């Protein structure tokens, strides 16, 4: 069995932060006695990713998923434990040979020079990554066509829309054809059609080149569309590692059906609760068959079967369990 392309073993990372007291007296006090506190951002996380896998990291704000990406890419050093990529590369050493093999897109951090067109940054990246000119031209033409941003190549970055900028950030991360692509919130601020375009493109890339993709997102659509496997991070702990369907089946415990009908139901059948005029909820455990004429049903959804509902339930739990 081939060794994993990413191995994280019992990784821990914590950082020191300072708390400030409110008001003038608090500010005066803090001037002489700053109160330090240590935040454990990642706690005993182990994770192994095989070549060609698409792993989604899910978690609430501040759960530790971006910190985990920073540990894997070498932006941050781990306190204890071990992180290795490509079997023997320690990310924090940032060897050029290692950096040549990874691509990183941090959605809120820009690679693009604000005052210049994206092409200038991309040409700089061509030289940084020693990409032959012909290969660069062909690959760039392909990427811009697939992401529908060819006309914007010569427009100064400051004049691009958020969506166009994010697409160019993605192109920057992909321009040297990395073996592992790290994407932090890749579709933030992007419209639905562009999101679909990015999903299709990344899937195709993963299928055609066996590129390993590590993805974090608040948007469960990103994860459902792309990830073959998900790891759920909560309060710095990994609380789940498996497939999306595995996650749903493990945590979907109270089945509730959401039904939308063409006209209001009259009389209201038993075990059916009316939400609004044509919108109803049924406890699926209480019935063996639907008490509504199927010809009148416009849509049926298993309410707690959605990833969103499960994550809301998971992240609202105060005490995480390993």
């Amino acid at each position, binding site marked *: 069995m081939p060794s994993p392309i990413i191995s994280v073993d019992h990784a821990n990372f914590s*950082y020191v932060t300072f708390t400030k007291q409110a008001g003038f007296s608090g500010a005066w006090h803090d001037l002489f006695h700053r109160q330090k506190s240590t935040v454990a951002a990642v706690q005993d996380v182990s994770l192994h990713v095989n070549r060609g896998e698409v792993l989604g990291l899910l978690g609430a704000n501040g759960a530790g998923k*971006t910190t985990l990406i*920073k540990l894997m*890419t*070498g*932006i*941050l*050093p781990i306190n204890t434990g071990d992180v290795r990529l490509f079997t023997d590369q320690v990310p924090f050493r*940032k060897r*050029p*040979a290692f*950096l*040549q093999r*990874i691509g*990183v897109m*941090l*959605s*809120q*951090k*820009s*690679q693009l*020079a604000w*005052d*210049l067109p994206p092409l*200038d*940054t991309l*040409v*700089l*990246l061509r*030289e*940084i*990554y020693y990409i032959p000119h012909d290969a660069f031209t062909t690959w760039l033409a392909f990427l811009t066509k697939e992401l529908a941003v060819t006309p914007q190549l010569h427009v*100064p970055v400051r004049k691009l829309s958020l969506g166009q900028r994010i697409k160019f950030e993605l192109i920057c991360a992909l321009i040297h054809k990395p073996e592992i692509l790290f994407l*932090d*919130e890749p579709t933030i601020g992007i419209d639905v059609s562009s999101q679909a375009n990015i999903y299709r493109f990344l899937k195709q890339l993963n299928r055609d080149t066996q590129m390993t993709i590590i993805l974090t997102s608040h948007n469960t659509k990103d994860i459902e569309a792309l990830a073959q496997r998900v790891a759920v991070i909560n309060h710095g702990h990994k609380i789940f590692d498996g497939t999306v369907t595995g996650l749903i089946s493990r945590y979907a415990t109270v089945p509730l059906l959401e039904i939308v009908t063409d006209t209001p139901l009259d009389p209201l059948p038993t075990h059916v609760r009316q939400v609004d005029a044509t919108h109803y909820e049924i406890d699926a455990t209480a019935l063996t068959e639907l008490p509504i004429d199927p010809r009148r049903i416009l849509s049926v959804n298993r309410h707690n079967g959605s990833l969103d509902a499960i994550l809301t339930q998971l992240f609202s739990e105060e005490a995480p369990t390993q």
Partner: protein
Amino acid sequence: MKYWLTCQNALMATLAYRGNLVLNLLTTAVNVMVTIFMWLAVYNFSGRSDIAGIQPNQMVIYLIVVNVLALIFSAEPIFKFSGLVRSGNLSVVLMRPINYFIQSFWDYLGRGLPFLVIYGLATGFISPVFRRGLLYALASLLLMGLTYGMFFLMITAISLCSFWLVQVWPLRPVLSALFLLLGGQAFPLQVLPPTFAWLIYNPFSLAGNQLTLLLLGKLSLNQILLAGGWALGWAVVALGILKIVWPRGIRSYEGVGS
């Protein structure tokens, strides 16, 4: 090539904001005019035709050149680096297989290029530097190169405090004052009493005062070599600080923001 492109992009970014460039030059011109008028008044009211061996017309040229040098030797890398650390954008730079300092140097060069061209043209056409023999010309070029590299290293070493200080803007007036007083931007350091003569070898003076005197043809070959030696010494000190502080800073870097 990659570093040359960095330089080119920095130059283009500088030229992209033409208004800012013109305003910067205008502000400098106003400052120079004020300083010149002040010195002419000093000459006028003191009734002396030279102060510390410098005549009024030489003082005017000195002040113009030293202020152009102040534009070349800017402290901008400190604030740029601070911005990278504070916003967490340093993460993007760290993910590239490049040497940050070399890239930053070429960026610095690109941003200062318009003013370097002015200084270069003045040296080539007005100054006697290249009319005093090959050895003198080579020594002068060496001093210019060494001083430029030293100042960049010094500023970069100072910029590393950004790893621990959230805001470094208080340094801006301090550095301006240092260049104004220790760099000879407001007056030639030669007007100071002899007990302060050692001040001419501080990094700011090497960048401002000494390079101006070089352009004016007021440095002997020995003085050029001595200034070059000091520039090399300061460069070694700055390099040492960088070697020690960078690994510590990078470990304390938190990559704030998502």
